[in-house]
Each structure stands twice: as structure tokens, then as C-alpha cells.
């Protein structure tokens, strides 16, 4: 009954408690909805890309085709399937009037595909399309709405419409040798321009078979005819894959992941084997891939990462919510200590007092939970809208998802939150000393702790010791600080922070039994704060150079300790700080009286004051951290500008330049603008046909080789000495043409690696490495290295099992990635040594042995050459950038092999392959000696000069205008040049970072809102419960203005304490990030100024109204107030 009356009568106080719970629940529900929404966004995009396809069955050699004859045997293998369908897919250039897409997806589908795969629907009318009639002619195609938009066509475009494309036509010319009389067979390759007719647009966003295709659709037999032109030896009956569906209508009801996994595994087991004539070993005849299943894994992985980041962030923000609620509950207890004393005096038991408070909390929790649900929905909706803006494509359907769990969760969380945060205050209330409560005596803090508390401290010490001993004693493989020199690994730091965190926490409790609590806990606070501070400021990047294991766990741990330590330290010393403040204020005319009151008020309510500034301390730590990310990274990004060494922009052609007698694309570029000083042409190579697409990660001739896991699609490129060195003969010559940096060196170079190399050191090392690269006699040993990322791509481990930061090439130079790694030896004990290739792929670690297909044997199988990955191009500097295919340069959308990166061969190896360089090949992919497709361009202008844009545009116009410029010169309208300004790349990187940061900003801003509300609540309650003091102030002569000032000053001081702690801590953590990136910490003064203004405004805003109201109450009335 007392609880109920208390609820109904103390409206303001209960409202503030409910508000606090509401905010906490809003945040948690918001995070839940965001994560669910992200998951939904992924699934929607999966539905759009995969349609009804559950898995694909392909040729086990990956590059090879299947035939329609395989259909029967495949259908037998998947008896449960509701649909099996052959499909042929490729990429072709597409030219519709002046709109050009060099890599349009093209798919051939049978007109009688099973119903399980759905229908094609007309983009405009939404009606079902009959492809049997529409695709009657072999030049008729349907275009997806997605592709149509890309080519600037719309629903009302008049059809049919011409689309020009090219197919390679290979013919064999037979001549008779005049002297020997023997026939000479010469393959002749020509590009056949074909005019196709677009006969319809299908809606690629609508459920049905159309949703899985994003380009052009041919009738299967028609595309087979076109593709077979490039190989007259091959039959026309070619199929890329057989699509299998286990259920229909995936859009309405997603297939169960486990069910699909079981089906895939079962199918893989039942696929028959046959002997490979090349390797004489048995292998499965089919390969099974399930993008849907991979996607589930990827989505789970991504959502887990996002969820972890958001939850970590949310946890810290939540902490502020908990602080707010606890604060409110504690205030309630303090408020009614007198009443509790009366209750106890008239016979209420401790249990009764406890129970009545908990019941009160329960009601507050339920109301707060329900309100929080609505808040969370609004928050989730806002985040979902922001996600749409963030991804910008509009293709991902980002609808806020509100699961039933979220609804139940919100109420449960509300109740749990309010009860948990209410237990301590309720206990405190139930244990009040009746006499002291009635006399208004507060418990003093300077006392020594009880025996129980000391015993609890011993327990915590033991936990700390166990954690410390876990590493190295229980878990012997872990590096531990007592057995290895220096605190140079993150593992040691994790252990130091966790173990010592508990240890010194417990020690503080034990010591407080024997000495002044303040002194004892000060020791704990300083140590807690110091460990992560040393990690962030000194250790990261200096002692700890291998940061590959840097995880959110260490970050969160560090932030929590640094925040708790600092808050505890300030709280313990608050009386001293406030005394200092008082001594300053009472010397200032006009605020002497306020100086006497406000600091004393703050230090007289240490718990409440601490909880108030703690909210801001935590939230501003995160805010400052997020705010420093961009300017600090800007420092790292602008480093790229310095490293570009004069290269202002890059131009990429959609296909290798044409061979024109007397000129070249480079020569033509010089003519476009005389400010162009140097054009460096490169060959990059992104094959999408047959074996040339794959490198082998295991010797293809060995019995270990498994084509299903040991082949990796990856691009290739060529480096010539002239491109890199120019006229310089060796590394000692300073006249290098282009300063390609490496961050992993061949073993012959790495010996001179210094622990903290300067840019010049790195450039010197890189130049030395290039000399090795261009030395045909140089071979490098192979090491027993592997990449965890590669293992994911080869299917050895699940994506979700991948540890963050365990990527292949080292991200830092100070530690030799091959240190302590054994080189491989053959059966005779000799070192295995190969020529080297360089890579910008993030998958391939230095020292790894790989096999690259160089030519085709007489049987049509690839002939492999072994290489060692000798160097990694530095993706952060010139080298990996701007050539790095992984960065998605070049025209069109990067394909899979482009994303995985590129291997670069030295010229003397490149010319030995049929698949690259001129060799003698007449394949689609062979090139002339100086036939380039990527060009780095230096000008006389500075890198950020706006005129560069004009030069780049002039090059694009020269190349991309039909029947003019380069297209006229080559009589080929299928060239497309795209340019990328290095400066704009820096800007776009920043923009992307800005977007991601602003996403995080939503959450930290929400934290600020919690802080603001917290301050408002505290202000209202401070004023309402201090009416009596205000009356006293007025009675002894405080003018109203000073009464208001004293209320405001208290809030401003608490806010600024929080701000200072937050700024210092935030900068300390940011310093860790800056150290990791080896860049200087940039302090965002503007943001810090904003935070200061925000805090002051919030304090003034939330304090002024209650203070003004209170100051207007006549002193006599205020003095009657008894709380």
C-alpha cells in the first residue's frame, strides 16, 4: 500500500524514474531493431540476387562447362529438389546508343524452366512474360530493369531497341607449307560485333526467376551458339551450371539454413568420382556451391560484427542509462530517509521497506519498458532510414524489423533494469539507522571497511590471480608477461588489464580495512586507469607492434577500466577538488556566496554527483573517440597523397588498348594536354574464362591437390622495370619513375628490416626488393605460412570462425612475418625455392607457395609454374594503391577475382604465358608487348588542383565518344575509359569513414541525450528536495539571482568534470588508434568546443527553469518543506 501511495503521490520523482528506464529500454530495443533490420536488409538483397536458387552444380575443374546431358544425372543426385535448371552465364560488353557497360552479365536460360524458379514479370505492366515467344530469334534478349537503369533506359523506352555487343570469333586458317608441303594450322581471332534486340524489360526486383538476373537474358541455346564461336573445337552444348531449388517461394518463407547445409553436404557426398587423366587421381565430377548458404554465413558474420560493435557501444551507453536509473533510485532513497526512519520507528520491518521499494520499482519498470518499446521503435525507424541513406543504393529494402522477442524483451529489460538498479537503494533504505535517519545524519565515507567487505576483496584478488595464472600456467601456449621479455603482445595486455583489474580492485577493498578508504581506493583507481592508458598511449605501436589480435574485447576492456578508474579517482577526491573550487570562487566578487554553497553541495552528495558526471564521462569518452577517428585517419589518408610521388590520377580502359601502328594510348594522352608529364602504362588482367582465372594453392600434380578447395580466382598483372625504375638501373639510383612501396619483402631483403622504419627506409627497402623482383635468377624460399582468410575462401574454415585481424599480409612492418617460420624443404632436404611474384591481395601472405597457370597443354589442361609470394604491395601507400584492383578501380562493377586482388609477375615471366603478355598466344586474353589497360598519370599540377578534373574529363571524352577520338582511331566503339583522381579517392575514403562514423555517432549522440535527460532529472529533483535550503539561502540574504546561479553552477561544474574526464579518456584511447596507424593524433578542437557548449547549454537549460521556479517560492514556504 505504501508503494502504491508513493507511486501515486510522488509524481515528479516517479516520472523521472520511469523516464530513466524508458531511455535505457529505448536504447536496447533500438539496438535490437537495428540488428534485426540489418539482417533483413541482407536477406532481402540475397533474395534479389539469388531468387529461388538454393545451390549450383558446376564442373569440378571450375573453369570447365557441363552439358545438357548432365541434367539427368544431377536430377538423380537431388531427388528432393523441386526444380533443376541448366544455365549459361558470361559477361559481354553492352552499347545502347551512347551508353556503355563493358561488363554486362548475360545469362542463357531454358524456355521451359521449372515453375519452382518463378516467372519473369514485365517491368512496366507487372504481367508475366512469355519468353518462349519473346526470345524466338537468336538476337533477341530481355534486359533486367536494373541493367536498363544503368544504361539510362526506363519503363517507357520504346522497344525493340538495338544493343551492340561483341563476341570473340575464333577460326582456323589452314595453309600449306611451300617447302615441306605440310599443312600449317593458324588460329585467327576476331571480335564479332553483333546487334542484339532488346525485346522486353523484366522487373529484377520482383520475386520470380527475374530477380536472380541483373543483366541480359538469352534463350539458352542462343547464348550457347554465341559463346561457342570463340572455340570451334567445342560443342555448342555448354552449360555453366545446373541450378537447384529445394523449395519455392523463398521470398515469402526463407529456407532453413541447417536444412540447406544438410542437403549440400549430402549432395557433395553422393557425387560420383572419376580419374583425372592429367593427375591420374580420382576427383568428384561435380562441384557444389551454394551462394545462399555462403550468404547466410556472411550475413551472420557481418551481423555478428555489427552486432558486437553496436552492442559494445550500446553496453557502454547502457551503462550511462544504468547510472541514471541508479541515481534516480538513490535520490528516492535519500529523499525519504526520514520517512523510512518513521516507517521503521512505527514498526515496519526491513523486509517490508525493501519490498515496498521493489514493488515501486516494478511498476516503474513496466511503464518504462512499454514506453521504451515505443521509443525503441522510433529509434529503430530513424536508424533504418539512416541505413538507407548510408548504403545509398535504395536497392536494399531496409524496413525496420520488430520481432516479437523485441517486444517481450523491452518489458522484461525495463523490469529487470529497474529492479536491479533498485536493489542497492532498496537495501540501503531498509538498512537505515532509525535514529540517524530521523536526525538526518548521513553515513560518512571516511570510515574503514567492514570485515565482510575485506573478505569480498580477498575473493576478488583470488579471481584476479586465477585470471593472471590462466595464461602461461593453465594455458601454457599463451605468451605471459613473466616468461617473455617486454609487454609487447596484446595477449599480455589483455591479461594485465583483466587480471590486475580484479587484483587491484580486491586489493583496494582489503586495504580499506586497514587504512582510510579514500586512500585505499585511490590506489585502485589510479592503477585501474593507468594500465589501459599506458597501453593506448605508450604500448600500442611502440611496444606492441603486432596489432593483428586487436579486438573489440580489448578495446571495451580498456575503455571500461580507464573510465571506471578515472571516475572513481575523481569521485574519491571530489571534496578536495570542490574545496579548491570554493577557494577560487569565494575570492571572486559577486559569486562569493555561491562559491560557498555550490561546491559544498556537490561534495556533500558524492554518490549523486559522481553518478551525474559519470554519465557524461562515459558518453564523452565515446564521443571524443568517435570524433577523433576522422581527423586522425585524415592524417593517415593524406599520407597517401605524399606517397603518390607525383601521380595525380589513374585511367583505366575497359579492355586492353588497341594495337595501332605508329601510336599508342599513352602517346595519344600526351597529345590531349601538355600538362601531362608522364604516363605509366600497366597490364592488369582479370580473366573470366577457363583455367586462367585460377591460381593453385597446392601443387596441381600432387596427390594432395583438391580442385574444390585449392583453386583461387585471382587477377594477374605484369610489372616491367621501365614502369617502376624508369631509367634507373638499380635501387641506389634516385631517379625512380614511380615509388612503389612494399610492406612485405623477399627474404633476401628483409634482413635489413629495422624495428621502426621511416618512410625513406621503407622506400629504400622497396627499391631493393624491386631489384630482386626484376632479377630473373632470383629465387626465394617457400615458407610454412598460411592465411586464415584464405582458409575461409577455400572453405577450410567457416567465415564465422574467423578471428578478426588475422588477415594475410602483415599490416605492420616492425615485425618480420617470417620470423621463426620454417622454410619448406623437399624430400631430399633441399630448400624449395621459386621465382617471386608480388601481390596486392589481402589473402596471400609473403612466403606462400602458389602455382600460376602459364599455358595450355596439348590435352587442353593448364600447365602450372610454381612461384613464391615475394612481396606485398603496401595498400596504404603507392603500390597497392592506386593500382590495387581490390580497391574496386576500373570500369563497371569489380568482379570477384578483382575483389580478391591481383598477382603481379615480372616481365620475363609474363611473356612466357599464353594467358598474359604477347607470347605466341592467340587467345582472347593475350596481349601485345606494350598493350596496356591501366595508366598512372603525372602532371605539372599539384595533386589537389581542381584543373586535374578537367584533364581527366578530357581523356574520358577522347576515349568514350562514339566514332570520335580514340574510338575513331581504333574504329571500335567498345572502349571505355574511366579516371580516378587520387585526391578524390582520399575524399571519398573520408566520406565513407564519415558515413560509418556518423552511424556510430547516432548511438553516442543518444548517449548524450541520456546525459541531458539525466541532468534535467537531477536538476528538477535537486531543486525540489532542496527547497528548504533554498529558503534558508533566501532568509540569510541570497538574492534570487544567486540562488539560480548556485543551482546552475552545480550542474555546470558536474557537466564540465564529466567533459574533462571524457575528453582526457577519449583522447587517450584515440591516441592508441593513432599509434596503431602510426599517425599523429589530431585533436578535434571544434567538436570539443561543441561538447563544452552542449554541456553548458544542457546544464543551463535543464537547471534554469526549476531554479527560477524555486527562487520565486517565498522563503517562508520553502522553509516549511520537509521533503
Amino acid at each position, binding site marked *: 500500500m505504501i508503494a502504491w501511495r508513493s507511486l501515486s503521490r510522488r509524481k515528479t520523482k516517479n516520472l523521472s524514474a520511469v523516464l530513466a528506464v524508458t531511455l535505457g529500454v529505448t536504447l536496447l530495443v533500438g539496438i535490437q531493431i537495428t540488428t534485426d533490420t540489418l539482417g533483413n536488409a541482407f536477406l532481402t538483397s540475397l533474395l534479389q540476387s539469388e531468387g529461388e536458387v538454393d545451390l549450383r552444380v558446376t564442373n569440378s575443374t571450375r573453369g570447365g562447362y557441363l552439358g545438357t546431358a548432365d541434367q539427368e544425372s544431377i536430377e538423380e543426385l537431388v531427388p528432393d529438389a523441386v526444380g533443376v535448371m541448366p544455365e549459361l552465364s558470361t559477361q559481354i560488353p553492352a552499347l545502347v546508343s551512347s551508353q556503355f557497360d563493358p561488363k554486362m552479365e548475360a545469362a542463357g536460360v531454358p524456355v521451359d524452366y521449372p515453375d519452382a524458379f518463378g516467372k519473369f514479370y514485365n517491368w512496366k505492366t507487372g504481367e508475366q512474360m512469355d519468353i518462349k515467344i519473346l526470345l524466338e530469334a537468336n538476337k533477341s534478349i530481355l534486359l533486367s530493369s536494373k541493367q536498363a537503369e544503368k544504361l539510362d533506359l526506363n519503363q517507357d523506352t520504346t522497344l525493340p531497341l538495338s544493343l551492340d555487343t561483341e563476341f570473340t570469333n575464333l577460326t582456323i586458317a589452314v595453309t600449306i607449307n611451300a617447302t615441306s608441303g605440310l599443312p600449317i594450322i593458324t588460329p585467327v581471332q576476331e571480335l564479332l560485333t553483333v546487334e542484339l534486340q532488346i525485346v522486353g524489360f523484366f522487373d529484377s526486383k520482383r520475386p520470380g526467376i527475374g530477380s536472380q538476373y541483373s543483366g541480359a537474358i538469352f534463350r539458352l541455346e542462343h547464348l550457347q551458339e554465341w559463346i561457342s564461336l570463340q572455340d570451334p573445337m567445342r560443342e555448342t552444348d555448354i552449360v555453366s551450371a545446373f541450378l537447384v531449388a529445394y523449395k519455392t517461394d523463398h521470398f515469402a518463407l526463407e529456407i532453413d539454413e541447417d536444412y540447406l547445409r544438410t542437403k549440400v553436404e549430402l549432395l557433395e557426398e553422393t557425387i560420383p568420382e572419376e580419374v583425372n587423366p592429367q593427375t591420374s587421381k580420382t576427383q568428384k565430377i561435380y562441384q557444389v556451391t551454394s551462394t545462399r548458404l555462403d550468404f547466410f554465413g556472411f550475413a551472420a558474420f557481418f551481423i555478428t560484427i555489427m552486432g558486437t560493435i553496436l552492442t559494445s557501444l550500446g553496453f557502454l551507453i547502457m551503462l550511462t542509462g544504468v547510472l541514471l536509473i541508479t541515481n534516480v533510485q538513490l535520490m528516492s532513497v535519500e529523499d525519504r530517509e526520514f520517512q523510512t526512519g518513521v516507517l521503521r520507528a512505527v514498526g515496519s520491518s526491513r523486509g517490508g521497506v525493501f519490498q515496498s521499494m521493489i514493488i515501486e520499482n516494478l511498476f516503474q519498470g513496466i511503464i518504462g519498458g512499454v514506453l521504451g518499446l515505443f521509443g525503441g521503435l522510433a529509434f529503430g525507424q530513424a536508424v533504418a532510414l539512416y541505413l538507407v541513406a548510408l548504403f545509398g543504393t535504395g536497392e536494399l529494402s531496409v524496413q525496420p524489423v520488430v520481432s516479437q522477442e523485441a517486444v517481450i524483451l523491452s518489458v522484461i529489460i525495463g523490469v529487470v533494469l529497474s529492479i536491479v538498479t533498485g536493489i542497492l537503494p532498496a537495501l540501503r533504505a531498509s538498512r537505515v539507522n532509525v535514529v540517524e535517519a530521523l*536526525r*538526518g*545524519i*548521513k553515513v560518512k565515507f571516511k570510515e574503514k571497511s567492514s570485515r565482510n567487505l575485506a573478505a569480498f576483496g580477498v575473493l576478488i584478488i583470488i579471481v584476479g590471480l586465477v585470471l593472471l595464472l590462466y595464461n602461461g600456467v593453465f594455458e601454457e601456449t599463451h605468451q605471459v608477461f613473466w616468461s617473455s621479455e617486454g609487454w609487447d603482445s596484446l595477449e599480455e595486455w589483455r591479461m594485465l588489464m583483466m587480471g590486475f583489474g580484479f587484483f587491484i580492485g580486491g586489493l583496494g577493498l582489503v586495504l580499506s580495512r586497514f587504512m582510510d578508504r579514500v586512500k585505499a581506493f585511490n590506489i585502485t583507481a589510479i592503477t585501474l586507469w593507468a594500465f589501459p592508458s599506458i597501453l593506448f598511449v605508450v604500448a600500442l605501436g611502440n611496444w606492441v607492434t603486432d596489432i593483428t589480435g586487436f579486438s573489440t574485447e580489448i578495446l571495451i576492456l580498456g575503455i571500461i577500466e580507464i573510465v571506471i578508474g578515472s571516475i572513481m579517482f575523481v569521485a574519491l577526491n571530489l571534496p578536495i577538488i570542490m574545496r579548491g573550487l570554493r*577557494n577560487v570562487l*569565494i*575570492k571572486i*566578487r*559577486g559569486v*562569493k*556566496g555561491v*562559491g*560557498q*554553497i555550490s561546491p*559544498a*553541495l556537490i*561534495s*556533500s552528495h558524492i554518490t549523486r554527483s559522481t553518478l551525474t558526471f559519470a554519465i557524461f564521462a562515459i558518453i564523452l569518452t565515446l564521443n571524443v573517440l568517435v570524433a577523433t577517428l576522422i581527423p586522425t585517419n585524415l592524417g593517415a589518408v593524406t599520407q597517401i597523397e605524399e606517397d603518390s610521388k607525383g601521380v595525380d590520377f589513374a585511367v583505366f580502359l575497359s579492355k586492353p588498348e588497341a594495337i595501332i601502328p605508329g601510336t599508342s594510348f599513352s602517346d595519344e594522352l600526351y597529345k590531349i594536354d601538355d600538362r601531362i608529364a608522364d604516363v605509366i602504362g600497366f597490364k592488369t588482367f582479370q580473366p573470366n574464362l577457363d583455367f586462367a582465372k585460377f591460381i593453385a594453392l597446392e601443387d596441381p600434380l600432387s596427390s594432395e591437390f583438391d580442385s574444390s578447395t585449392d583453386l583461387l580466382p585471382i587477377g594477374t598483372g605484369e610489372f616491367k622495370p621501365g614502369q617502376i625504375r624508369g631509367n634507373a638501373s638499380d635501387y641506389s639510383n634516385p631517379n625512380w619513375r614511380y615509388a612503389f612501396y612494399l610492406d612485405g619483402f623477399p627474404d633476401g631483403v628483409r634482413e635489413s628490416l629495422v624495428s621502426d622504419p621511416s618512410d625513406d627506409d621503407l622506400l629504400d627497402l622497396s627499391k631493393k626488393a624491386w631489384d630482386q623482383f626484376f632479377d630473373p635468377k632470383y629465387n626465394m624460399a617457400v615458407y610454412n605460412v598460411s592465411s586464415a582468410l584464405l582458409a575461409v575462401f577455400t572453405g577450410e574454415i567457416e567465415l564465422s570462425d574467423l578471428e578478426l585481424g588475422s588477415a594475410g599480409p602483415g599490416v605492420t612492418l616492425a615485425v618480420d612475418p617470417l620470423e621463426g617460420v620454417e622454410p619448406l624443404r623437399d624430400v631430399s632436404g633441399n630448400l624449395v625455392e621459386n621465382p617471386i611474384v608480388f601481390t596486392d591481395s589481402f589473402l596471400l601472405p609473403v612466403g606462400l607457395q602458389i602455382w600460376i597457370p602459364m599455358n595450355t597443354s596439348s590435352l587442353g589442361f593448364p600447365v602450372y609454374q610454381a612461384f613464391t609470394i615475394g612481396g606485398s604491395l603496401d595498400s596504404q601507400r603507392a603500390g597497392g594503391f592506386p593500382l590495387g584492383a581490390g580497391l574496386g578501380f576500373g570500369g563497371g562493377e569489380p568482379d570477384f577475382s578483382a575483389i580478391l586482388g591481383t598477382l603481379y609477375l615480372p616481365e620475363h615471366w609474363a611473356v612466357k604465358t599464353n594467358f598474359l603478355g604477347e607470347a605466341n598466344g592467340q587467345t582472347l586474353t593475350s596481349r601485345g608487348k606494350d598493350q596496356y589497360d591501366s595508366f598512372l598519370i603525372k602532371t605539372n599540377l599539384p595533386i589537389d588542383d581542381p584543373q586535374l578534373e578537367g584533364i581527366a574529363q578530357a581523356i574520358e571524352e577522347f576515349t568514350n565518344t562514339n566514332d570520335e577520338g580514340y574510338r575513331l582511331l581504333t574504329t571500335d566503339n567498345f572502349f571505355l575509359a574511366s579516371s580516378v583522381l587520387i585526391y578524390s579517392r582520399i575524399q571519398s575514403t573520408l566520406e565513407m569513414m564519415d558515413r560509418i562514423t556518423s552511424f556510430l555517432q547516432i548511438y553516442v549522440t543518444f548517449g548524450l541525450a541520456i546525459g541531458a535527460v539525466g541532468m534535467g532529472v537531477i536538476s528538477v529533483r535537486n531543486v525540489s528536495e532542496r527547497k*528548504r*535550503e533554498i*529558503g*534558508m539561502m*533566501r*532568509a*540569510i*540574504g*541570497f*538574492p*534570487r*539571482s*544567486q540562488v539560480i546561479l548556485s543551482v546552475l553552477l552545480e550542474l555546470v561544474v558536474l557537466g564540465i568534470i564529466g567533459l574533462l574526464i571524457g575528453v582526457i579518456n577519449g583522447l587517450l584511447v584515440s591516441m592508441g588508434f593513432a599509434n596503431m596507424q602510426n599517425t599523429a593524433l589530431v585533436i578535434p578542437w571544434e567538436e570539443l568546443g561543441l561538447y563544452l557548449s552542449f554541456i553548458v547549454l544542457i546544464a543551463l537549460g535543464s537547471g534554469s527553469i526549476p531554479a527560477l521556479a524555486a527562487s520565486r517560492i*517565498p*522563503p*517562508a*514556504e520553502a*522553509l516549511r518543506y520537509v521533503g
Partner: protein
Amino acid sequence: MKKTKNKKDQAPQKPILTISKLHKRYNEGKPNEVHALQGVELTVRKGDMMAIMGSSGCGKTTLLNMIGHLDRRSSGEIIIDGVDTSTLSDGQMTAFRRDNIGFIFQLFNLFPFLTAVEDVETPLLLRGINSGLAREQAKMMLRELGMGDRLYHLPTELSGGQQQRVAVARALINQPAIILGDEPTGDLDSTTSSDIMDLFRRINKTNQQTLVLVTHNRWIAEKCDYIVHMTDGKISRIEDNPLAKEEKKR
């Protein structure tokens, strides 16, 4: 508002406080309106020590609050030391109160978060006096009232009598012309009450400061020069106490 330097030379007959037609209504215009003061007329001379007595709810505390301007009057006039307080703005009234009126309450009303010396020095700080000087004066005052060994104690660390001494020190620190006490001994035992009353008499005698005390206690009232009796918001009778006057002259 200037204070007289030599209080002993002042003629005791000069009125320090004149109240005429003073009305106070609570919840004015509402059904639960209470007419607490109904045209009070009162003159208090400088150096007088006066007690106000009456049954609960008769308007004693309301009258005291009106004199101290802790509450707004409904109508009427209050002239303190020749100043018609109805002409003062809120800010001027606050300054006037600070400099001319000292308060002593039944529940002491000390700031719970300030030590004795801090509490006492606060009115001086409000007047802009140098903090060092204010501290010294506060210490002197507390020592004078026998609180020299409790300077740095918080109210919760002091007994009721000690707290009331601190409150007295705070009321006296600005040397106000009038000291108002609302049941100043109401919360104290008889010995402590007696001590506090002796203190009041001493102050009244030596400093010629006017004291107006509200009390229920006849024994306390008899220590004053006059006893004003109140009934239903009106002054029913003013009782002269020659015994107390005689004692003061001794």
C-alpha cells in the same frame, strides 16, 4: 539603512519596527482561504526584547515571517528602521534583510553541508567581505558563543544547543538591527533553553539589538521586555514585563 555606531547612546524609545493594518491571507480567493493576520498594528522600539505568544494557528509565525519578509503580505505596512519595506524591490529587500534582520529558527535551519564556521561566514561573504576576513570574524563570533572547539563540525555532528548557537552566530554576524526568533528554544531541553535565553538577553543588553521571539513557553516569554498576545490573527493584548526590564538595567 545605515547602522548606528554607538548603540548605547540611542534613545530606547525610538521605534525600530512599525506595523500597521497588516493582513495576510493564504489561498486568497479559494474556498480554503485562511485569513492569518487580520490588521495587525504593532510598534517595537529599538533595543526591545519582545515575545509573541498565542495558541497554535493564531498567526505568530506568520507575523514573524512578515516582519522578516520571508513571505509576501496581502496588505498593510511594515516600516523597519524608518524604511517602508513595501517600496523595496525583491533584490533590495533581500539586501535589506541580509543587512538588517537576523533569523533564528526552531529547527536551526543550518546548511547541512556546511561546517559551523562556513555557515556563519556565509552572510559576510554575501556582503562581499574578503573571505579571509569573513573567516576570522566567523571564528571570533563562534568563540564568543562558546563554540570555539566546534568550528569545523557539520550540523549533524553537533547537539541541538550547539546547532542553535551556530544559528545565533549566523544571525548576529552581520550585526542586524532586528533578530527574529521562531521558537528558538522549542527543540531544546530546559537547561539548554535557559542558556540560549541568557545568550539572547546578553546580546540584547550589550548590543542594543532588538529581539522578537515567537514562543509557546511562558517561562521564555517572561525573559522578554514585552509579551504580545495574539488571538485569531489579531493582537489581543500587549503585556509589559517590568521585571525583565529591571533586570536588563542591572
